[in-house]
């Protein structure tokens, strides 16, 4: 969707961006990451020609942007900046409709769209449409900022540290909201950030810049698992393996089709099943398969009776769509080495173990 070919920008004697090649596929969220002054913002601003490239070519949807009138080009690209930049003299509605108005859309259509978009970011149109930016909190302003960029439904979005000035709690919320919107609209997003955690959370691709050069361009997991050089390794942090936990879902690390017992089974059956799998404990499920509790091998082996009489609570239950970071956190807080995994309906579908997670991370680390 967006392709950069040997793009270079020279300011006087300083080479801000040095022969960058990049290809951002349609629907990707590409985070440009690096320390300040590394050329990431310059690279982004060359895409909508706020900064003209010194040499090299930039293609959007196969068209060379140098051949498109810059005003037309920019109206077809959503733009969000860190300072938000809502026009204080205009209401929220007028702000959102800026680009549709520039494009000469029908007023009724653009105003209706403004209301729809506002509800998309959980702001009540009845309350907020007629407000002025100064009457909004920082978080609300940036929601409007994002929505304004989406107003004319551009296929490409450029975001310059959009959530950098928002307090950490609100930032998480807005990031989640944006991810939800993005999952639905599937825009091609180029996103400048200096926050590795934000990048890992949002990105489908991460591009790491240093002194104007693109050092590594890959998926977040690959960058965290196999940094190209010591600079990237330092930049993503010593805890990069922990950061990877966030990228992996429980369902990917889970052992599927686990052994199980029901309440009416005898303890002998349970012990036999544990021995068969080499497990120290086994999960008891209800009649329809919901995880109810567990039996420990060391407590069950010399006793008689049925499972339901000896069942103890599970150490912890985690949803299959949670990420491994939450799973590991739950293991540590419960002092458990494994967790039962359940789906949306609470059905027992598998289990994750500390050893399993370690092996998974180790395996792809060595790849």
């Amino acid at each position, binding site marked *: 969707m967006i392709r950069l070919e040997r793009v270079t920008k020279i300011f006087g004697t300083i080479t801000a961006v040095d022969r960058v090649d990049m290809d951002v596929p349609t629907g990707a969220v590409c985070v440009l990451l690096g320390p300040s002054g590394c050329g990431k913002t310059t690279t982004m601003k060359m895409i*909508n020609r706020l900064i003209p490239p010194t040499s090299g070519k930039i293609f959007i949807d196969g068209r060379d942007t140098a051949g498109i009138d810059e*005003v037309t080009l920019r109206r077809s690209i959503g733009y969000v900046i860190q*300072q938000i930049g809502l*026009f204080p003299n*205009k209401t929220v509605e007028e702000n959102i409709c*800026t680009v549709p108005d520039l494009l000469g859309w029908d007023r009724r259509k653009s105003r209706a769209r403004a209301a729809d978009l506002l509800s998309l970011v959980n702001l009540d149109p009845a309350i907020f449409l007629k407000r002025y930016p100064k009457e909004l909190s920082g978080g609300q302003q940036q929601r409007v900022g994002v929505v304004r960029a989406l107003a004319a439904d551009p296929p490409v979005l450029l975001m310059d540290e959009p959530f950098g000035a928002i307090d950490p709690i609100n930032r998480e919320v807005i990031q989640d909201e944006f991810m939800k919107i993005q999952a639905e609209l599937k825009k091609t997003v180029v996103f400048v950030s200096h926050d590795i955690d934000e990048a890992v959370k949002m990105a489908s691709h991460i591009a790491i810049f240093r002194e104007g050069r693109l050092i590594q361009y890959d998926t977040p997991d690959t960058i965290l698992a196999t940094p190209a050089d010591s600079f990237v390794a330092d930049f993503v942090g010593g805890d990069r393996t922990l950061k990877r936990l966030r990228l992996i879902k429980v369902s990917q690390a889970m052992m599927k089709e686990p052994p199980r017992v029901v309440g009416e089974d005898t303890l002998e059956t349970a012990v036999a099943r544990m021995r068969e799998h080499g497990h120290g404990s086994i999960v008891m499920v209800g009649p329809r398969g919901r995880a109810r509790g567990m039996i420990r091998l060391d407590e069950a082996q010399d006793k008689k009776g049925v499972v339901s009489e000896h069942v103890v609570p599970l150490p912890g239950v985690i949803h299959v769509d949670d990420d491994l970071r939450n799973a590991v956190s739950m293991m540590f807080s419960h002092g458990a080495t494994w967790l039962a995994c359940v789906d949306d309906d609470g059905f027992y579908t598998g289990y994750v173990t500390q050893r399993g997670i370690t092996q998974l991370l180790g395996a792809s680390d060595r790849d």
Partner: protein
Amino acid sequence: MAASLASAAKLLVVLGVFALGAFLQSRGVLPGILRHWSDVVYLARQHIELVAISGSIAALIGVPLGIVLTRGVVRPYADAITQIVNLGTTIPTLAILALAMSVLGIGSPPAIFGLVVLTLLPIVLNTIAGLRMVPAHLIEAARGMGMTGTQILLTVELPNALFVILAGLRTALAINVGTVPLAFLIGGGGLGELIFTGIDLMEPTMLLAGAIPTAVLAIVIDFLVGQCQFWLIPRGVNPLR
């Protein structure tokens, strides 16, 4: 409590005005001023005309000049050019009027010229200051969304600078109203005729018949521009509401 204090203050002002009126009446000043009433009306009209014409010309030159001075190529020279405009304020008003008279002759044209030169500076300076105060990121956002330079000026920069620009116009008009009496000295008319004749004839009531309407005029014009500031400027960028 605050409301009752405010209404008490209003009552005091009204009583004060009445007392002043009664005092002036008893000293014979008020009848003296009213004797000049037809002159006052005629000259006040001339006065307002001079203010309106010179003020409009100054605004029509000053605001565009201020805008031009903040645009691309001229921007670095803005300070040098405002210094030239500044000369108009540093030269004594009487000297400007005398100079204008020696070129343009006697009557209202030299008076208007002098007044324009004098009132230009606050308008230009405030236009520049107002436009410079518009945050750079607003302009970047506007550019990034694909506005042209003219669209940015008209829909982003000017609305956000309007409060400061109008404040400049307010200052300019206050100076203007107070300076118009000098126009009488070069035959420009206005309430200065009563003031200076009153001085020459050592007749204080005549002087007051010129001075009081001038002061009232200044207050009224200031109030009107203030109302413009309040109502014309969008609520989002209006510090008054």
